[in-house]
């Protein structure tokens, strides 16, 4: 298992947002995480990526315990993520956004830059950033555009490019298809597929159940902070508990 | 970018240089008509703006009146005096710049000012280094003349009554007339107040009075009741306010309320026209350099002339700058040359019992003012001698 959580728990005041959740994602696989609104999906992602500390349980990455590590450490260890409500650096260019994604893979050049040198060639980091911008379908022509100027769907793609820039072991995508039209969504599906082919491990949180079923080898279902199912897609579709949870809440909504 | 930085700095310097050459023609307050001999220029650095700006009109006007009178009476051996006034902004660097301008550009014979002691701490060393005589006209603190932190300060003279002269006189008079045994000092945390604190403590010691408690307030204190309550606990014979006028007013009110019958002894900070309208001003005992009520002819003439010229009564700051200019003119007449700074300095040292609104005026060996101290209180909204 590349990533493993055991009994992961988070409480906010009296509410247990994540309740003793065990998850496992094998190297090179995609795990889908679904569940109704407020089921604790984003909190779980925040725990795994170190944005909020856990109240209980352990997180293991490639077998070693990383519980309690802050977000920037986990990023350095190979966990990259996107955010449900897009968090690109709006006032910076597309290229700078992606370069910041490479922060952990770049040696600090602050001292080296004090000696001025001719800007002869595009350096390796910039080249890699541009190719990532191409890869997520933004097009390197837009490298100098400010991130805040991009349409919403493109900002999501930029977030993915930024996350990939760190050459992660695990990529967490938090509702990447939200706000995308069917064409963009199809492009996203293709991108995820090709990343899996290259051996990347993915945790995909998504409302678009079809996208999850099509791309993930396993699917876990959360409800009220608890994992109520964890199975191959076909098994999930048949699971009465899952149907109950979904239909129950869907009916209310 | 590097180019831009350079252009930016260059631009600022360029702007500054344009202003620098334009400013002198626009600014100086000249008080002369064309004269056969070249004018003798005198610089006055004063707080036209900034924290101490309220001293200014009187300080400038006093000097201006003296210059006008001297010129009307024929000037200095046929040469007219020309007063150049520069703003010291109540801050050190602008005071220094004003002094440097007087010395480098205007080539003045002597300088008066600046208004605040803290500004003088920066400006006076400039004149000292250049060897230009300076007369301080409102600095009362320690280290202005005599023994100065920046080394010798023999080019600096002082026409304002220093607290180390005024306070001992005040303390002596108060001790005798009020029969003081023990006092409490309430003091502020500024340079002026701390200087006063030191001087007061020495003066009381010399007069055999015990200072039972020293209570500090800060520039940020709003209410003075707690300080006076603390002082009251010592049951002193009088309260000493080592403070500026604003806090002093509040201390007077609190003493009147909490310790009826007790007096407030103060330094030059209490010597403020703004305190005259305070209902409890009658409690204060303060040593001043000047008394408007003095019936000395030089003084009554000065008061009348000032009132005619400017439409208001002069205050101590006007009297002191007027006096300094009178003293300087006297020295210039005797020096033989206004451009020979050493001669002017020597002549200043020779000023002896000159009649001025402050009384008979001389300098001590330390170049400090030697003049009578007026120990005053307030009656009917006027400073009157303390009996």
């Amino acid at each position, binding site marked *: 298992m590349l990533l493993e959580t055991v009994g992961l728990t988070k409480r906010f005041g009296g509410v247990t947002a994540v309740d003793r959740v065990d998850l496992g994602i094998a190297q090179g696989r995609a795990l889908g995480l679904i569940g109704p609104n407020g089921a604790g999906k984003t909190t779980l992602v925040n725990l795994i990526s170190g944005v909020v500390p856990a109240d209980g349980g352990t997180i293991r990455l490639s077998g070693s315990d990383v519980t309690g590590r802050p977000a920037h450490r986990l990023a350095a260890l190979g966990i990259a993520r996107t955010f449900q409500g897009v968090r690109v650096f709006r006032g910076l260019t597309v290229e700078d956004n992606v370069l910041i994604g490479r922060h952990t893979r770049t040696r600090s050049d602050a001292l080296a830059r004090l000696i001025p040198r001719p800007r002869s060639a595009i350096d390796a980091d910039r080249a890699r950033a541009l190719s990532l911008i191409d890869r997520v379908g933004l097009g390197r022509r837009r490298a100098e555009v400010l991130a805040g100027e991009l349409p919403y769907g493109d900002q999501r793609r930029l977030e993915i490019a930024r996350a990939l820039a760190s050459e992660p072991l695990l990529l967490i995508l938090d509702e990447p298809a939200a706000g995308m039209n069917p064409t963009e969504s199809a492009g996203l599906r293709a991108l995820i597929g090709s990343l899996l082919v290259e051996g990347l491990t993915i945790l995909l949180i998504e409302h678009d159940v079809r996208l999850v079923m099509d791309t993930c080898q396993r699917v876990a279902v959360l409800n009220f902070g608890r994992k109520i199912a964890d199975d191959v897609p076909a098994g999930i579709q048949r699971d009465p508990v899952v149907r109950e949870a979904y239909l129950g809440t869907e009916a209310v909504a | 970018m590097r180019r831009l930085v350079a252009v930016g700095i260059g631009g600022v310097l360029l702007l500054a240089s344009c202003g620098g050459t334009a400013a002198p023609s626009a600014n100086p307050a000249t008080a002369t008509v064309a004269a056969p001999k070249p004018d003798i220029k005198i610089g006055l650095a004063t707080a036209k703006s900034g924290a101490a*700006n309220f001293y200014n009109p009187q300080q400038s006007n006093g000097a201006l009146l003296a210059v006008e009178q001297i010129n009307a009476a024929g000037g200095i051996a046929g040469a007219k005096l020309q007063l150049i006034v520069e703003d010291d902004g109540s801050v050190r660097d602008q005071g220094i710049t004003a002094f440097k301008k007087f010395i480098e550009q205007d080539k003045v014979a002597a300088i008066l000012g600046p208004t605040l002691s803290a500004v003088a701490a920066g400006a006076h060393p400039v004149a000292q280094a250049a060897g230009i005589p300076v007369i301080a006209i409102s600095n009362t603190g320690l280290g202005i003349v005599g023994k100065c932190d920046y080394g010798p300060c023999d080019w600096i003279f002082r026409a304002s009554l220093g607290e180390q002269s005024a306070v001992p006189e005040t303390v002596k008079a108060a001790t005798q007339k009020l029969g003081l045994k023990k006092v409490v000092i309430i003091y502020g945390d500024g340079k002026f107040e701390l200087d006063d604190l030191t001087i007061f403590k020495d003066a009381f010691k010399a007069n055999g009075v015990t200072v039972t408690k020293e209570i500090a307030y800060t520039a940020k204190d*709003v209410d003075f009741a707690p300080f006076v309550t603390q002082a009251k606990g010592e049951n002193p014979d009088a309260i000493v306010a080592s403070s500026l006028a604003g806090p002093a007013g509040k201390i007077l009110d609190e003493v009147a309320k909490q310790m009826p019958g007790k007096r407030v002894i103060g330094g030059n900070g209490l010597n403020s026209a703004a305190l005259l309208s305070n*209902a409890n001003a009658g409690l204060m005992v303060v040593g001043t350099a000047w008394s408007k009520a003095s019936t000395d002819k030089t003084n009554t003439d000065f008061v009348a002339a000032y009132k005619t010229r400017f439409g208001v009564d002069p205050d101590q700051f006007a009297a002191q700058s007027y006096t300094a200019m009178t003293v300087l003119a006297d020295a210039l007449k005797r020096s033989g040359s206004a451009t020979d700074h050493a001669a002017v300095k020597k002549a200043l040292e020779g000023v002896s019992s000159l009649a001025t609104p402050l009384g008979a005026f001389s300098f001590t060996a330390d170049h400090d003012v030697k003049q009578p101290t007026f120990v005053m209180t307030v009656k009917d909204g006027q400073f009157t001698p303390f009996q």
Partner: protein
Amino acid sequence: MAEQLYNAVFIGSIYALFALGFALVFSVLDILNLAHPTVFMLGAFIALFVIGTLGLPWFVALPIAVLVTGLFGIALDRVAFAPLRRRGAPALSSMISSLAVTLIVVRLVELRYGGDFITFPAGSVPAFVFRVGDATFEGIRLAIVVLSVVLMLILTYVLRRTQLGRDLRALAENPRAARLLGVDVDRAIAATFFVSSALGGLAGVLLAFAYNTLDSRMGVPLELRAFTVMVVGGMGSLPGAVIGAYVLGLGEVASLVYLPTELRDAFAFGLLFLVLVLRPTGLLGQKSPDRV
């Protein structure tokens, strides 16, 4: 000791009266209005103008000063804050624009009245004195003590129980949502500034009356104290601000009595610093300074 306690309560009341308006604007609009000390000073000078130049009695000057400073508050918002709000500028910008207004107004007052402190014309300031046994109480001081608590109660009531209060709380919570819910946001903001500045003006007049002293920088010493009071009480809480004011007043007097004099001034800022570091939400704070 009893006397010092009374002194402390009085000082606390001054801080409270000053901080209430400050805290109101912060709690509703998240603006740190650095022009509040200027409004305070302006109140005192308007009273001086009405009494000294127009020759009217103090009980006319007081309401006029309060009204004019209230209107000034609305103008202040239009000039310094509204343009920034439209642009969605961050908190720093409004701190700076309010500072700019302060520079301008203080200097204008100095051009008219000079930079030195001045007093009201003799006999024009109310001077009621009550005697209880040996102790004397001045009317103005008692009024300040009572008002600071009464105004806090009224303000809290208004915020909790009235339509305006509900509008303001909606505004504080989320301006966009408030607008969608039909709150007249512009009117609510104008009301906030009117009330805040009128309170500041009232504090200025009362304090000037109490000391019969006013000057163009009279609000400055209270400014940093108001920060302390708000932080200690809890940013955004009006009762918290009043409690914070009394804590500070008592602490200052206690440190005068018990601490070496040199360390006394460090008390306010030390307290401020400690509370910020140890309990940033203050005593009664609801807003977390660590909102993400």
